[in-house]
């Protein structure tokens, strides 16, 4: 193929790629604009929106709530997924395919339908509008995302190591915690960070479950956009982008990002 055409195709693809972070960059730029809105050419710079956000207890509270919920969800769902995936990996039950389909099934639910379903069950249990309810809902939503990297990591473990350990007298507990757990750590870290970030940024299902007592940062951002689109929102939004960026960079450093584009071996 002629070179100019290839170069043109690449340039066009690159332009499309830059379209993806565009709104985030715009928000970041707005958050530093003293005027509170973005204009061209840019005006005076200022940190006043950050100062305003940092002194508003509502934002601080929502930020801490979101971080806390995400941390609890990440640990819970990683432990649950590791326990289950490890048992499946060792026992290789005949109904494994059906079971994994069930684990993945929340992915096939449009979020609005998932939200209603979870409202139904949490309202019945009396957990609507509580942090516990949101944690439970996020565990349901993130389980498929935690499950896959752990299954992949377990499949990569050389079964001879497990056999050798068993012959040398390691009991099941030792095999699980002393061998499988450390050898599957790439999957565990991926599951931990991935579910953390999904929980931290989740809004569509969560907005069904928040109440006067507890709200998360994304849901509060949503509520504020509808009330008054104050430029404080740009500062808050930039803060959530920073949290997300930090987690993605952490994932890149610790494990690499290949997981996201690796073909599902299952």
């Amino acid at each position, binding site marked *: 193929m002629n070179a100019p055409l*290839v170069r043109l195709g*690449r340039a066009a*693809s690159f332009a*499309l790629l*830059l379209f*993806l*972070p*565009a*709104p*985030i960059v*715009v928000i970041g730029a707005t958050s530093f604009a003293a005027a509170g809105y973005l*204009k*061209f050419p840019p005006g005076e710079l200022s940190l006043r929106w950050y100062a305003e956000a940092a002194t508003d207890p509502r934002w601080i509270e929502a930020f801490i709530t979101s971080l806390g919920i995400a941390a609890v969800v990440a640990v819970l769902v990683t432990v*649950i997924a590791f*326990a289950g995936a490890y048992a499946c990996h060792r*026992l290789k039950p005949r109904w494994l395919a059906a079971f994994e389909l069930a684990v993945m*099934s*929340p992915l*096939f639910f*449009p*979020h*609005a*339908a*998932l*939200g*209603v*379903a979870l*409202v*139904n*069950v949490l309202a019945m249990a009396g957990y609507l509008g509580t942090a516990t309810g949101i944690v439970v809902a996020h565990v349901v939503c993130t*389980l498929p995302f935690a499950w896959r990297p752990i299954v992949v990591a377990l499949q990569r473990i050389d*079964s001879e190591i497990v*056999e050798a*350990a068993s012959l*040398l007298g*390691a009991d*099941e*507990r*030792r095999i699980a*915690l*002393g061998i499988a757990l450390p050898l599957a750590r790439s999957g565990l870290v991926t599951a931990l960070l991935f579910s953390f970030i*999904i929980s931290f*940024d989740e*809004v*569509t299902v969560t907005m*069904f479950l928040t109440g006067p007592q507890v709200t998360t940062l994304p849901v509060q*951002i949503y509520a504020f956009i509808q009330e008054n*689109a104050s430029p404080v929102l*740009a500062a808050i*939004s930039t803060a*959530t*982008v920073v949290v*997300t*960026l930090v987690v*993605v*960079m952490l994932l*890149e450093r610790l494990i690499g*990002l290949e997981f996201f*584009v690796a*073909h599902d071996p299952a």
Partner: protein
Amino acid sequence: MRRPVRPPSSRQASPPAPDMRGATSAPRSLGWLLLPVLLVLALFLGSVALLFFHAFWGKDGFSLVYFRQILERADYHEVFLRTVSIAAIVAVASAVLAYPIAWLLWRLPRWRNLLLVIVLVPWLVSLVVRTYGWLVILGPKGFLNETLKWAGVIQSPVPLIFNDLGVVIGLTHVLMPFAVIATLSVLLQIDNRLEEASESLGAGGFETWRRVVLPLSLPGVFTGLSITFLTSMGAIVTPILLGGIRQKMAGTQIYQEVVYNFNMSKASTWAICLLLLSGLGLALLRAAEAALVPKADR
């Protein structure tokens, strides 16, 4: 490699186990480890069961009143029609726009990690934040309108949001990373030698792409189409913020019934209809894929 982490229990576990059975015969007691997952699954399936219960069982016992309402009211037909059309347009737009990005990442292996970050970060940033970004860009006093006015291209703001166009732009942007990732993961599976063979047989770059790469990458495109269609069907935040209150979609109607009207029966009925329509859409996509992609590639 670092030494394996010693579990706290290793002290009790150190005496050799008396039996020497192979590791392949894992004891059934491991089954207890499935309990937490089963609990989560039970919760999820229970919530789905409740969805059906609420949809068919109102205050006065068994009732199909909300299903009938959906069948009879023309304004509701319009909402579902808009939901499906927007989801279909968004799915196709994201697949088409995502393909060149995936192709770029595939073609530039040295830059792939950096470029992947540019795809992944927008994907993982909360969709409410990204939607807010589009509000700032496309709003009547937004960046785009103000810039165009400043440049003298337009006199009065062009209505880019609070209509279906805004919803399509917002949703397409929100969902494109899904399609990029789905397409890229299939492109990465393609054997390099196939391309080399095609080129050594005299096909040009474009011809090779059209006849070798494109057919092989179609499964990824279809995965992307399915995910983006499904997610747009259930979207709430982007349609409310960029479409306005009057441009209803099924998700926004469901949210309104739950949060403002506390009508769980109606919301559950709508959720079931949404599920059915999404399932139908996915089945159609499957059929299209089966027709287009040769069996060996699937």
